[in-house]
């Protein structure tokens, strides 16, 4: 299986996304003025990074279900 199709490296990409999002979030919100568009972009990155393992799990469950239906 190609590396990018492996769950662990997908999670690795998610972890990098979260780190980048955290850096953006700090830049956007730690000062006196909040950069709202940048803040939402940062939060979107963090949320998406955290969603990756959940999406992978959902996908796996759907594939397992599909496999079972095909077998029957």
């Amino acid at each position, binding site marked *: 299986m190609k590396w990018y199709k492996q769950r*662990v*490296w997908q*999670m*690795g990409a*998610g*972890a990098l996304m*979260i*780190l980048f999002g*955290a850096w953006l*979030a*700090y830049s*956007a*919100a*730690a*000062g*006196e003025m*909040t950069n709202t568009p940048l*803040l*939402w972009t*940062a*939060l979107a990155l*963090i*949320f998406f*990074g*955290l*969603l*990756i*393992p*959940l999406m992978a*799990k959902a996908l796996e469950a759907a594939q397992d279900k599909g496999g079972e239906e095909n077998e029957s």
Partner: protein
Amino acid sequence: MKESIDVSFWPWIVAATPLAAILILLVGLRWKAATAAPVGYFIATIAALTLFRASPRIIALQTVKGIWDAIFILYVIVPALLLYQVSKEAGAFQALRRGIEAYTPNDLLHVLAFGWVFASFLQGITGFGAPIAVTAPLLVAVGVVPVWAVIIPLIGHAWANTFGTLAVAWNGLQLVTEMQSPATTAIIAAVMLLLANLLAGLTIAWLFGKGRGIREGLPVVLIVSAVHSVGQLILAPLVPELASFLPATVAVGVVIMLGRSRWYRNPTGVETSRVMQKGELQQQRGEDRKKERTGGGSEQEEMSLPLALSPYFVLIALIVLVLLIPPVKDALSAFQIGLSFPELETGRGVVTEAADAYSAFSPLTHPGTFLLLSAIFAFVTFRWAGTIDRGRMDEVLIRTIRTSIPSAIALFALVPLAKVMEGSGQTLELALGIAGVATGTVYAFVAPLIGAVGSFMTSSNLSSNILFGPLQERTAAALGVAQAAILAGQTAGAAIGNSIAPSNVLLGIGSVGLTGKTGEVIRRTITYMLAGVLLAGAVSLLYVLFLSGGAGGSAQ
């Protein structure tokens, strides 16, 4: 943080939901931490944005704080795993097992020595999960099943949390509260931790061989427990910084001597232990005996015990040199990196104070650095001794990174979850809810549980004390309960609660290269944690009822 908000039923239920969801998903449905933790984070975030009226800015900055903290937990996990993988690749663990078995063949003593005595020694001097990350691989080396190799030090080190790491958690509690009687509080906490310590020794012996394990382990459990506990009881009110470290160091010497005593110089009488690897270990032992008879052995198997242990000697030397010599520690900890954060306030008036250097990281005194240096030392030394090929290093590094990634995702959700709950007032809501429905005596009993909840969420005795210490102090005053018992219960409960903190569990399973076992570890450890917290609650209750003039009496 503001310490009074209006508490009502539904917000309390909502505040409890993220923690309940994580426990159900991890323990009940056996999800992996990397998938369960984000669910908890999203629930906490939605609750914060809606019911708890936190702005997106609060969510973002609290999340950043959590990720910042998580990075430094990972900074312990990754080097610990690297050290494990390098030692495993070089065959150091087989050498370690053979050497230790030659000293004493008693598996029960090995398990208690590494999982309880050595883990407590490391907790006495360093923290940040290093006792788990270091001892779990050593337990695997002496033949313990990896999952149990994580569970055993989680139980074994917990008692040393409050006065360990040079009493940083205890000093934190003193800092955030106006302790009326520090000596009395320290003694009560030491009594609670004495019971937790004895319970830890007995639990590990029971896990090893049930009734037979306890009978066989009783001499070492009683002797070591006496050394740990009496030492801590005497030192806690006088020199709290050394109250864990000194007794734990003496106990290491005691357990080495016990290895040659009549109790432990022969193999254990427990025939099948669930914590020990079965087929593989027996096969290795058979091969060892065969080679002893024929005098054969490969290049890897010729590694000596001192060589196999050398990275750990370097680790201990670095820790002692840097952390116990004040001028060295002061000089090296002068270099710190910390992020500044503004003051934040939710729509319900929960204030998180500004920080100039939030959770400042001292790279030169951090256990992660010591572990990294030990891993590098291990590679160079094993390479020099010819027990590891340079070409294998790429594979070791890739394996280390692969195994660390699920822990990273779980930590990037779990620690921010705790921070979002804290910043939005959900944590305060939870604690005030418990405090609000309790009478004086009931509160005395549940105070350690609040400490344990704090440390389950933050994975830190110190953080739990900072988070809940002021609340416990105020509630004790409002209910007229002895402050000393409540604050002792807070810190002892937090110490014991650390044994099931998901970040610590992740640290352990990461350091032995396991994934997806977080729920199983918590499920098997939670009974010890609950028993320890109940015992601490009983001590607090007895003190309040019989020694302090009762609930509603003296608040001393």
